[in-house]
């Protein structure tokens, strides 16, 4: 008998969403359908206007989530997407049944400041996000737009992601975490240069994924999928 169709919402990290990570692909192979809310600016399209403030971003998020028609369902958020996923659970608890956070932004610990991902020369900004090298799919992102337009598209997506966390990525989540009522799983890469694993304790219970960088779902897909799968199936 075929399994019930199951949907989860995925919110990507700083480098955007060039296609399913191996970890996400493993969940898809299990029968999960992945819904991807389209946040402004992350598509690299011309004419992006940055929301005025964080509330503007959250409003855009809620609209984008509702547009998928996927909720209520589990939400998986990575990095900057993790911050948004957490706030979705805070402000729209009815939309989130389970919450998976992969090294989320949102709480900044000056004792574990990490590397400023935007204080790196533009051409080298992807590298520190990964512990095991930049997956080829990120380099090829927007290649279809051609040699002239691809760098512009990459720049525009960078604007969107950077705007969400500028200047230090603290959006006050520490004061709101108690509002999350659904079960949550927090995973953190042991080798995260951007938000060092020392920050993870501020999010409560968490699991450390050995050998994972900031975008740990790409660095350690088996371990990440292995942790998420039983949590979602519980």
């Amino acid at each position, binding site marked *: 008998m075929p399994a019930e169709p199951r949907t989860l919402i995925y919110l990507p990290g700083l480098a955007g969403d060039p296609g399913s990570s191996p970890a996400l692909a493993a969940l898809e192979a299990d029968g999960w359908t992945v819904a991807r809310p389209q946040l402004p600016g992350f598509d690299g399209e*011309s*004419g*992006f206007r*940055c929301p*005025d403030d964080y509330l503007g971003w959250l409003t855009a998020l809620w609209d984008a989530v509702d547009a998928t028609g996927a909720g209520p369902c589990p939400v998986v958020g990575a990095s900057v997407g993790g911050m948004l996923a957490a706030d979705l659970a805070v402000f729209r608890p009815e939309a989130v049944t389970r919450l998976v956070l992969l090294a989320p932004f949102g709480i900044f610990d000056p004792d574990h400041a990490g590397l400023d991902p*935007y*204080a*790196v*020369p*533009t051409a*080298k900004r992807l590298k520190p996000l990964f512990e095991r090298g930049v997956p080829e799919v990120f380099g090829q992102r927007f290649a279809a737009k051609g040699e*002239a337009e691809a*760098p*512009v598209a990459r*720049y*525009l997506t*960078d*604007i*969107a*992601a*950077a*705007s969400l966390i*500028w*200047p*230090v990525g603290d959006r006050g989540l520490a004061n709101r975490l108690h509002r999350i009522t659904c079960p949550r799983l927090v995973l953190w890469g042991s080798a995260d240069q951007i938000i060092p694993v020392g920050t993870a304790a501020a999010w409560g219970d968490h699991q450390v994924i050995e050998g994972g960088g900031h975008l740990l779902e790409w660095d350690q897909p088996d371990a990440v999928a292995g942790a998420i799968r039983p949590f979602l199936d519980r």
Partner: protein
Amino acid sequence: MLWFHLMPYPQLPEDFRERYRSVWVDLDAGLLDPEVVASSYETYLDQLVFAEACGFDGLCVNEHHSNGYGLMPSPNLMASIVANRTSRAAVVVLGNSVALYDPPTRVAEEMSMLDLLSRGRLVSGFPVGTAMDTAYAYGANPGTLRAKYYEGIDLVLQAWTRPEPFAFNGRFTKQRWVNIWPRPMQQPHPPVWIPGGGSVETWDLCAERDFVYAALSYYGHLVGKEAMDGFWEAVERAGRDANPYRAGFLQFVGVADTDAEAYRLYKEPAEYFFQRSLHFYPGFVDPPGYTSEASVRRKLQSSVRAAAMTTQASGGPTWDEMLERGYVIIGSPDTVREKLEHVARTLHVGHLMTLLHFGNMSDELARQNTELFGTKVLPGLKDIWSEHTDHWWPANAR
């Protein structure tokens, strides 16, 4: 003719490039000697006053943060002293970066004070601010910086000119009561100049709002020509006349009795500037959103700009490269006058902003440079645009 001071920290070590990654943002505070800074302030302020005595029409200061390139986080402090110690020249403040101040009303107030302190000699400059100053040193979100900047200028202009208290309800600044005291002496307001580095939006802003576009390129008139051409195209699109006084251009200049003497005298301070004062970490120059989409496209197409940036990143230009590319114009008074006239006419620029002190130049050489320029170069350049009227000059500067 304007005399522009960057007020650099003059004692960065010789091996600065090798030992430190950036003159901006994360510069080691251990390099800073307060006595050197205090003495430099005195010397630099004296030089500005001296420039007025040598016949310069305007004295420029500007705003930078967290750096050894320019020691003026608050140009208004310097301008207030200059205003008090001079009586004729325009006081040209090419800060304030309005988006950094919350509310920008503070800028309107301080500029009003400066206009009164100088008795109507203020030029009010509103730069966006460099990426290092704004996004990194001050933590401004580059994705909204430019929009906030435009809004800030609007607020300042309204604060200067609206006769009644008003409410300002912008995207970024919301202020129920705006009613600044004091108001500027110049009416309706001091001339507005916008320092720019080649952004498409700044050209349009200046052209549409009737502001002066002051091109601050350190990379000579070839790079400057691209910026100025873009500006003049914007002026034409806006349906305005091509009065050269709509534009300003910054140029390093070294004058001596002979060309050979100038070559010898200005090498060291120029190398100091380009190799130490401009030694910044590439990771601090391009925060996402600081450059608009349109400007990104244009810069990707600019081979001249790319060549200048590549040279800067790979150790800075040699002295001969600086001269060949026009980064620095040096020579005898006749040579300099001829070259500057060429620059002014080629770029169609009415306001030449000269940097006659740069890098670690000694006070003695800066004064010699200023005096030679004032007595032997400036008179030959004063009237090259005499058929045009300067509508962007302070009412009481003479």
